[in-house]
C-alpha cells in the first residue's frame, strides 16, 4: 500500500506567510497525480513536504500505512527527480545511479543488475561512464530518472522535471514518462506549471493557488467543469474568455446579457442556471467554443480582429468588440480574417460556463 495521504498540512514561514496552508489530498496507490499551478502556488513546496525536504508546520503525511511526518527524507523510501536534475557533478552516470543503493547497502551484484536494467530502459548504456557535464539536457534528465528508478522507491516525486528541455524533447519525455508509469505501476506525484503536461499525463490533476487546492479531478473532468474562474483560465491556452453577465427570466426562458452577447439560452442551460438570475455572474467561453459559423445554440458577437495567429492546423483569432471586450476564438484553418477586419463570431451557449461574480465559483457546482 503506497497511497499518499496529506492531512491538513501547512508550511508556515512565520509572520503570517504560508507556503502551503491546510492542504488535504489523497493520492491513490499507483496513481499519476499532477500538482498544477502558477509560480508560488505551493505545488513544489507540497512535493518537498512529501519528500521530507521541507518542514511540515502543521498536519500529518502518510505514505502507505506509515506516518512519515517526522521522518527524514532517507527513511521515507521516496525518490525525487529535481527540476535542475541535481546530479552529482563529480560522479559518472553509473556512480550517480549507484549512490542511493550504496547508501542503503544494496548488494553490489543487485546494484549492477538494476543499473543495467534502468540504463537499457532509458537508453543510457553508451553514457554510463560519462560525467553529467558531458551530457545533453535530455540525457541528464534520463540519468535523474534512472537514479530514481534503481532505488525502487515506493513513490516517485518529480518537480518540474521537463521544464528545462526544449519543446520537442519535452513532448517525447512526456510520453516516455507516461509509459514508464504504466510499466512500473508506482505512485507518482508530478509538479508542473504547464497545463498541457497536466492534461496529457495525469490520472488526476490537483490545481493549486496561493498555497491551497482549488480543484482535484481527472483532467477532462476538470477541463469540462472548472470549479471557478481561476481553474477555468489556468487550464487552457488561450485562457477561457470571461465576460461579466446578467441573466433574466425563468427556467422556460432565460435571457443572457454579457457585453456584446445577448439572447435566450438553450433549454438545458436555462434549466441549469435559473437560480443565477438573481445576481451578477460571469460568462465563461472556451476559445474552441467561439465558432466561425452559427449553429442552433450559438449567439453572435461582432468585433474587430486584433489577434491573428495561424498555427497551421488551426487559427487563433482575437477580436475586440465595440464595448472594448476582448474575445479569443480557436477556429478552423480556413477561417483567417485580416487584422482590423470586422467579423462576426458565434458563441456556443450549449458549452457555456457560468460563474458567480462575487467569488468566481461555478454556478453548476452550487446545486
Amino acid at each position, binding site marked *: 500500500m503506497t497511497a499518499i495521504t496529506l492531512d491538513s498540512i501547512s508550511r508556515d514561514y512565520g509572520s503570517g506567510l504560508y507556503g502551503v496552508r491546510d492542504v488535504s489530498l489523497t493520492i491513490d496507490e499507483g496513481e499519476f497525480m499532477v500538482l498544477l499551478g502558477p509560480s508560488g502556488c505551493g505545488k513544489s513546496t507540497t512535493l518537498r513536504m512529501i519528500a521530507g525536504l521541507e518542514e511540515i508546520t502543521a498536519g500529518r503525511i502518510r505514505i502507505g500505512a506509515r506516518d512519515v511526518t517526522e521522518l527524514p527524507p532517507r527513511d521515507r523510501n521516496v525518490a525525487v527527480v529535481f527540476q535542475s536534475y*541535481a*546530479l552529482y*557533478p563529480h560522479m559518472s552516470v553509473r556512480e550517480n545511479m549507484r549512490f542511493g543503493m550504496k547508501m542503503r547497502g544494496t548488494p553490489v551484484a543487485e546494484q549492477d543488475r538494476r543499473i543495467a536494467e534502468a540504463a537499457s530502459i532509458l537508453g543510457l548504456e553508451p553514457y554510463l561512464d560519462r560525467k553529467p557535464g558531458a551530457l545533453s539536457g535530455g540525457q541528464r534528465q534520463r540519468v535523474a530518472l534512472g537514479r530514481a528508478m534503481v532505488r525502487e522507491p515506493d513513490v516517485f516525486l518529480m518537480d518540474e522535471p521537463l521544464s528545462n528541455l526544449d519543446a520537442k524533447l519535452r513532448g517525447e519525455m512526456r510520453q516516455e514518462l507516461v509509459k514508464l508509469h504504466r510499466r512500473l505501476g508506482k505512485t507518482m506525484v508530478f509538479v508542473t506549471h504547464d497545463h498541457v503536461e497536466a492534461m496529457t499525463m495525469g490520472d488526476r490533476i490537483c490545481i493549486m493557488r496561493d498555497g491551497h487546492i482549488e480543484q482535484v479531478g481527472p483532467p477532462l473532468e476538470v477541463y469540462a467543469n472548472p470549479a471557478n474562474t481561476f481553474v477555468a483560465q489556468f487550464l487552457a491556452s488561450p485562457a477561457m474568455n470571461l465576460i461579466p453577465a446578467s441573466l433574466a427570466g425563468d427556467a422556460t426562458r432565460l435571457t443572457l446579457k454579457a457585453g456584446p452577447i445577448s439572447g435566450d439560452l438553450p433549454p438545458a442551460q436555462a434549466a441549469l442556471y435559473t437560480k443565477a438570475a438573481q445576481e451578477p455572474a460571469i460568462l465563461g467561453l472556451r476559445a474552441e467554443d467561439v465558432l466561425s459559423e452559427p449553429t442552433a445554440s450559438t449567439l453572435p458577437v461582432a468585433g474587430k480582429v486584433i489577434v491573428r495567429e495561424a498555427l497551421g492546423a488551426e487559427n487563433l483569432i482575437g477580436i475586440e468588440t465595440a464595448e472594448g471586450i476582448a474575445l479569443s476564438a480557436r477556429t478552423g484553418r480556413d477561417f483567417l480574417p485580416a487584422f482590423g477586419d470586422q467579423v462576426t463570431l458565434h458563441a456556443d451557449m450549449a458549452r457555456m460556463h457560468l460563474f458567480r461574480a462575487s467569488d468566481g465559483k461555478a454556478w453548476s457546482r452550487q446545486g
Partner: protein
Amino acid sequence: MSVIARNRIRAGWGFAAPGLAMLALVMGIPLFYALAISLSTMTMIRPELNLAGLANFAKIMSEPLFWHSLLLTLRYSVAAVIGEFIIGLGIALMLRQVIAMRGFYFAVLTLPMAMSPVAVALIWRMLLQPNLGIINQSLAAMGLPMVDWLGDSSIALSTLISIDIWQQTSFVVLLLSAGLASLPREPYEAAEVDGAGPFAQFWYITLPLLRPVSAIAIVIQLINEFRTYDLIYVLTKGGPGVSTELLSFFAYKRAFQGLQINEGSAAAFLLLLIILVITVFFFWLLERRKA
C-alpha cells in the same frame, strides 16, 4: 585573423601593459639580477660580476647543511599546510552552520591574517618566554613542568609550525568558506533523499566538490610556507643549532652573514624552482581532473 580579433588583442595588451611594465620593474629586474649574481663570483667583499657558471649551485648542493635545510623546509611546509587545511576546513564547515553573528566570527577569525608576521612572532615570543611567559606560568600554576618552547631543539620546529598554523589558518577558512558557499544546494537534497547521512554527504559530496578550491588553498599555502622567513628570524634565528634553519633562512645567512651573496642567491633560486615545480604540478593535477 580578423580586424576585430586583432584589435581586441591589441586592446588587451594595451590594458595589461602598465601592470606588466610595473611588474618587470619591481620583480623582473631584481629577479634577473639575482640570477646573474647566482651565476657569478660576486661576494659582499668582492662585488664584481664575473660569471662562474653553475659553480655556486654545485657548491651549496654539496653541503649537508643545504640538504638539512631543504628537508626541514619540506617537513615544516607540509606539516603546517596539513594542519591549516584540516583545522581550516573544520572551522569553515562549522561557520557554514552558523547564522547568527556570522560576520562577527569571520572578523575575529581573520584578525590573525591581518597581522604582520613580525608582530605575530613578537607576541608569541612574549607568550612563550621560558620563565615569565604566560604559557609557562600557566603550566607552572597547574603544577606542570615548564617547557622551553623555542630553546629545545626537539620541539622548536613544532612550536614554529603551531604558530604558523595559528596565523595562517584564517586564510584557509576564508578560501574554503567561499568554496562552500558556492556549492550547489541540489546535490545535497538529492543525497538526503538517496539516504546519505551527514558524514556520507561530507565524504561523497562536499569533499569532492570542494576539490578545486582545496587545491588552490593548498598551493597558495605551500608557497607561503616555503617562503617562511619572518617567524624564524624573530623567534629562533634558525636555532637552536640549525634545528629550525629553513631554506629561506639558509639563503639569508649565506648572503648576509657569510657575505657569500652569490651562494645565497643560488639557494634562493633553488627555492624558487621548487615552488615553481609544486605550483605547476598542482595545476596540472587540477586540469587533468577537469578533463
